């Protein structure tokens, strides 16, 4: 007799199109227990290897099963400093749940949902702190309070080092706070997770742009830090090189999401930053960011049009490849489809058309077909000659990916970069070509996932710790 995978209670799609409340509502204790029972407690536990931060998954599930949620939390936190975040946003389907032994014959154990359950429970309790370590007297500067930086900082603090984080925005979290929407990751959860990191002794300096307020060299020298970790992510937006990208109504996904999530534009005028969505929105791209932008546009447009007694907007995802190649997390695509987002596959914009007021009046697109795989392994999209057509849109959001923001490197030499602007860093250790500087997350890999950034933060923390304890004789120089 096998227990089926517990479905996650979710807000109804038609209802949730008009609000920013969390879509996935979380397991009840009964559901969590049922789901935990499904785990075979197999010997090999491939799930642990499947996890970029090696959460002892089978172990925490066992503790959960026996009713000791606190112990389950302790086990998770031994490896993962932000479990309430990861349980919600990790692409488990390509990580732990992909290799789950149960998954060979049945649906895999819902590891992510269980992690979320435990993490949320713990946040509700106020959270336990690990034992205070012996201070080492060494100081590390972490640049960027996103997933990589927060993880690196938390781990270093747990090892006894003094950590100060320099964040350029007015709130910590990085993509967790400006990129991922409220309905996927409530900001209250992010705040609580960040609070935990601060309780470990990490000091976060907000409104501190490294490259402007301080340089990396200054931090390492005059400011007395023994080492630095670069976790500034990939925050530079990419615009298509087509005519019309500067017209009114064209946004980078970064701007659109920052106005919406960080600045709470969907609550204008209660919050002062506005964000505008017209009647017909086209989001270009099909990654997680594109899904987020499309679903935010739908909600904002629905709320704004309801006030005017008008119909909700039509929101399109315009993607040059097909459904099969869509890189977004499966659950996000599924939720987007449920919410009525229209997917225009094998379509690519060639020009954004404007009116005499420089506003978006439409978008000229071309149909695509798939050829041989390119360097990324995905089939190359090829334009079909003569297939141009005009799409009726008034808002365009470019969600094509992002690159590292070069601001952080100002006046600090020695950091070798690739042609894409990413920092060259050792895959195992996170060491860069600059002495005493490590890097991890999107600044090294280009735009990727929260969990891989966290994994990199962990690795770098371990390596920085080794360096600090060896008095500079070991890694780093």
């Amino acid at each position, binding site marked *: 007799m096998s227990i089926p995978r517990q479905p996650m209670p979710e807000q109804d799609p038609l209802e949730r199109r008009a609000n920013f409340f969390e879509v996935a509502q979380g397991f009840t204790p009964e559901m969590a227990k049922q789901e935990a029972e499904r785990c075979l407690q197999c010997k090999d536990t491939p799930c642990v290897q499947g996890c970029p931060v090696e959460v002892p998954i089978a172990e925490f599930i066992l503790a959960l099963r026996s009713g000791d949620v606190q112990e389950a939390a302790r086990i998770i936190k031994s490896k993962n400093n932000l479990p309430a975040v990861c349980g919600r946003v990790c692409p488990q389907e390509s990580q732990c749940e992909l290799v789950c032994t149960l998954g060979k014959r049945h649906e895999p154990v819902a590891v992510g949902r269980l992690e979320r359950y435990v993490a949320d429970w713990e946040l509700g309790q106020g959270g336990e702190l690990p034992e205070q370590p012996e201070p080492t007297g060494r100081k590390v500067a972490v640049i960027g309070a996103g997933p990589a930086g927060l993880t690196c900082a938390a781990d270093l603090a747990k090892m006894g080092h003094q950590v100060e984080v320099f964040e*350029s*925005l*007015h709130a910590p979290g990085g993509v967790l706070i400006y990129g991922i929407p409220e309905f996927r990751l409530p900001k209250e959860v992010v705040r609580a997770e960040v609070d935990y990191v601060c309780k470990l002794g990490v000091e976060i300096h*907000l*409104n*501190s*742009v490294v490259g*402007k*307020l*301080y340089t990396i060299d200054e931090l390492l020298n005059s400011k007395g830090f023994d080492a630095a970790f670069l976790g500034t992510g990939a*925050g*530079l*937006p990419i*615009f298509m090189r087509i005519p019309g*990208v*500067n017209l*009114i109504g064209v*946004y*980078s996904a*970064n*701007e659109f999401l*920052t*106005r919406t999530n960080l*600045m*709470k534009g969907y609550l*204008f*005028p*209660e*919050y*002062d*930053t*506005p964000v*505008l969505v017209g009647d017909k929105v086209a989001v270009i791209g099909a990654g997680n960011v594109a899904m987020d932008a499309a679903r935010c546009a739908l909600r904002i447009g629905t709320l704004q049009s309801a006030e005017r007694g008008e119909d909700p907007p039509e929101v399109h995802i315009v993607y040059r490849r097909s459904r099969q190649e869509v890189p977004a997390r499966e659950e996000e695509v599924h939720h987007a489809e449920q919410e009525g987002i229209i997917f225009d596959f094998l379509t690519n914009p060639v020009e954004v058309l404007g009116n005499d*007021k*420089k506003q978006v009046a439409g978008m000229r697109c071309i149909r695509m077909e798939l050829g041989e795989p390119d360097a990324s392994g995905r089939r190359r999209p090829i334009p079909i000659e003569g297939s141009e057509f005009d799409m009726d849109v008034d808002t365009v959001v470019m969600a094509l990916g992002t690159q590292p*923001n*070069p*601001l952080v490197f100002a006046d600090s030499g020695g950091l070798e970069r690739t042609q894409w602007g990413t920092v060259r860093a050792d895959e195992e250790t996170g060491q860069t070509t600059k002495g005493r500087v490590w890097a991890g997350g999107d600044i090294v890999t280009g735009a990727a996932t929260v969990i891989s950034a966290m994994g990199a933060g962990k690795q770098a923390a371990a390596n920085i710790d080794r360096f600090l304890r060896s008095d500079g004789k070991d890694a780093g120089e």
Partner: protein
Amino acid sequence: MYSILKKEVLSEVNKLMVLEAPEVARKAKAGQFVIVRIDENGERIPLTIADFDRQEGTVTIIFQEVGKSTMKLGTLGAGAAVSDLVGPLGNATEIEDYGTVLCVGGGVGIAPVYPIARALKEAGNTVLGIMGARTCDLLFWEEKMRSVCDELIVCTDDGTYGRMALVTQPMQEILSARDDVSRVWAIGPAIMMKFCVRTAEPFEVPVIVSLNSIMVDGTGMCGACRVLVGGETKFVCVDGPEFDGRFVDWDLLLARQRIYLTEEKQAKEEWLEEHTCRAVER
């Protein structure tokens, strides 16, 4: 929180504030700006650095009350504080000994022009200054400008102070009368900068302008501030804020400044309704 140490009312709509921001003051240079957020619900707005004191650890801003955020900011006084202040942002003015330079400040643009003129003077330039505003009340810092300019012309559109002229008139005269002006700075409302560039055109001299696009983060991550300069997309916050005005697509800048006009108007009206002194109405 960043404390307001001093507040000066320059006119009904222009206010000056000295803010406590020692780290920003330490690094601030002429031409740069800061982003300010008043409180939790506030928007992030860019404001040019009008002055800074590295010893005292302060940064001075001058702003014109044009909408809700600036009006709200204007109600704060010494002892109050703003939630966030980020800086110094943008590229500093390229200060060199150019020989003779002309600095034109229009309206609230006088504020960023002052530290630039000062830095140019310190670098050995002969600094010719023009400062203008619509009317007498909107002028400020004449003494400060005089202290850093070798020659200074003050004008008002309506003649209520100084010479009755738009800044472009003395600009035209100076550039016609002498051939030694190697560089011009013109800072003020976009339309003023556009016309200064047009005025200087026949004289083939670089006209450095400081663009005041809408911004959100101010650090290059969103592109809200993008403009076309020489046909290329540039971000005002990281590629600017100064550009050679001869290559700026002014129509696009002006259009993009008006994206949220309706929302700005709504917010301003709601603010005024809530905060206009009822006594005045009686």
